[in-house]
């Protein structure tokens, strides 16, 4: 397939179509609405199911229903909508049926704004919904990656009968880039053996997340956990940029990681030995890889568009081996390459032992910068 100029949200939606999604259920919310609008035209064109639900609560439950039939199904929303979906996500996970959920993150908390942010990291990676479950979380940074990740999301969701989140932000949803779409996947004729489709010539299938006897619930929890451990072993994905001889590792995902790579290019020209480690799977988290990196670099700089969420996961893996610094913007503000370049320069010549004070120090620098920006 040839490369075309494609716009974020529409590209991901078409990618889902190519992946064979048969049910899309959503609700308008900026900045994910184009996804819904695109699907409202494309799905009926192909004779597939599309419903604009009355709310995100209803949408996720429609996804839940369709997921029980074994057909590929998804929704796309943004932070406040995802919060509404928390209950449904927990039910989908507890029932062990596959579903793909796209979160185009925006500034928050609460109503926040419609600008790009990464403030849902904890909500996405740590579950968001109640109970012991472990979603897979993919974090693309380019239109091509988003296309590829949506295909991957459906495959992983089915392989592991799991919830898969694809998290992007408004930048990625709105940007236009050259990218390639895959060919149309053939839709399988037969449902999976576990699916509900009418109990013809077989015993009924019951799909539920209630295990009233704690003994039975624990068996389920063990099964979910073991499945997660398999996912951790097999499905970690990440990207490394100029990491081979790096003395400083910048760790960032999505847009933050992408902006950082621009800064790193410039820093390298200045002779700073810096590289980027960009997780593509936020969950499972690339623990082994970051642990290895922490054994060979002098300092780590975590860059995020939130108050320091992946930062905690990095710190828990690094275990104090090297100083972990932080730079973040919040509220829907996207950092510019020069900001991160300043940080890289500062970190490169720093000998300070930060020891858990990296946030205070960052806030001081941030407030100075904000004053300067005024």
């Amino acid at each position, binding site marked *: 397939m040839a490369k075309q100029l494609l716009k974020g949200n529409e590209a991901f939606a078409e990618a889902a179509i190519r992946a064979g999604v*048969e*049910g899309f*259920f959503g609700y308008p919310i900026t900045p994910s609405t184009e996804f819904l609008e695109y699907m409202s035209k494309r799905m009926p064109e192909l004779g597939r*199911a599309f*419903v604009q*639900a*009355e*709310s995100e*609560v*209803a*949408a996720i*439950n*429609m*996804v*839940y*229903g*369709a*997921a*029980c*039939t074994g*057909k590929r*199904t998804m929704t796309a929303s943004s932070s406040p909508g995802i919060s509404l979906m928390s*209950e*449904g996500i927990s*039910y989908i996970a507890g*029932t062990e049926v596959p579903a793909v959920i796209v979160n185009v993150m925006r500034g928050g908390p609460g109503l926040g704004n419609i600008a790009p942010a990464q403030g849902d990291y904890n909500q996405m990676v740590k579950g968001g919904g109640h109970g012991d479950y472990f979603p897979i979380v993919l974090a693309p940074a380019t239109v091509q990656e988003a296309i590829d990740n949506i295909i991957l999301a459906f495959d992983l969701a089915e392989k592991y009968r799991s919830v898969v989140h694809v998290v992007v932000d408004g930048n990625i949803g709105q940007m236009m880039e050259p990218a390639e779409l895959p060919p149309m996947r053939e839709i399988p004729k037969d449902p999976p053996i576990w699916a*509900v*489709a*009418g*109990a*013809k*010539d077989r015993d*009924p*299938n*019951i*799909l*539920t*997340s*209630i295990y009233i006897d704690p003994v039975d619930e624990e068996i389920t929890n063990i099964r979910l956990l073991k499945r997660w451990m398999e996912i951790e072993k097999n499905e970690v994905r990440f990207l490394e940029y100029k990491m081979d001889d790096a003395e400083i590792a910048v760790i960032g995902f999505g847009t933050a990681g992408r902006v950082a790579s621009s800064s790193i290019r410039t820093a390298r020209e200045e002779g700073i030995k810096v590289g980027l480690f960009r997780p593509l799977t936020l969950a499972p988290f690339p623990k082994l890889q970051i642990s290895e990196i922490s054994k060979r670099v002098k300092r780590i700089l975590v860059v995020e568009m939130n108050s320091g969420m992946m930062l905690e996961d990095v710190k828990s893996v690094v275990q104090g081996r090297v100083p972990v610094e932080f730079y973040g913007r919040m509220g829907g503000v996207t950092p510019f390459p020069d900001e991160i370049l300043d940080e890289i320069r500062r970190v490169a010549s720093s000998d300070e032992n930060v020891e858990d004070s990296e946030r205070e120090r960052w806030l001081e620098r941030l407030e100075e910068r904000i004053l300067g920006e005024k």
Partner: protein
Amino acid sequence: MAIEKITDTLIYQRSESLTELHTHYCPGCTHGIAHRLIAEVLDDLDIREKTIGVAPVGCSVFAYNYFNCDFVEAAHGRAPAMATGIKRVLPKKTVFTYQGDGDLASIGMAEIMHAAARGENITVIFINNAIYGMTGGQMAPTTLPGMKTTSSPLGRDVELAGYPIKMAEILANMEGAGYIVRRSLHNPANIRKAKKAIRTAFEVQERGLGFAMVELLSTCPTNWKLNPQEAMDFVQEYMVPVFPLGDYKVRPEINE
């Protein structure tokens, strides 16, 4: 001497659409009757093998243990949304929800209204017993004025808690609704009428004639603190006047 062969004539047996599991419902609870009627209809219409049920949260959360067809378990109130998801991707299957008054008229109010508004081709069986059973007898949106429940211990005060919600009347106003009726399960005559209505409600789905709901006035002897017979009388004496039985919407094509 010829030995006369004794022949048994089968006049009644458990529906194929029911499992053999003994239900856990209370003595005098009409869930058992409602389940049986649905199962008989699935058998009569020969649709068991293409039926998918959506169970609610409530006393009937384990309904899927009693029905012999594919079933899914919804979150509280979300059954109509789940049913929508299933029916939209499997339009040729028969999809029904089975919901109580908390599930349908309280937390699930948005979902039922919009499923009816969209004219989803599903069948909804609404068990209205004017109280929350499973959680121990709290007030429901359908609780009668003055009725004592564990969360309206002095009796439902309409000044503070409003009036009972009449779902059949409300949903009948939706253009997407094809068949909205209210029946009762408190005596054999009404049970027979209820079965006919349930059968029609499933036929409406088969024929694609819109959203179908049968509201069934039901008992909750345990939480009403009445014995089974008293509970049946309560339905006749107190519930029927507030929730009149009848046909609230019947699309003309249904009777053609």
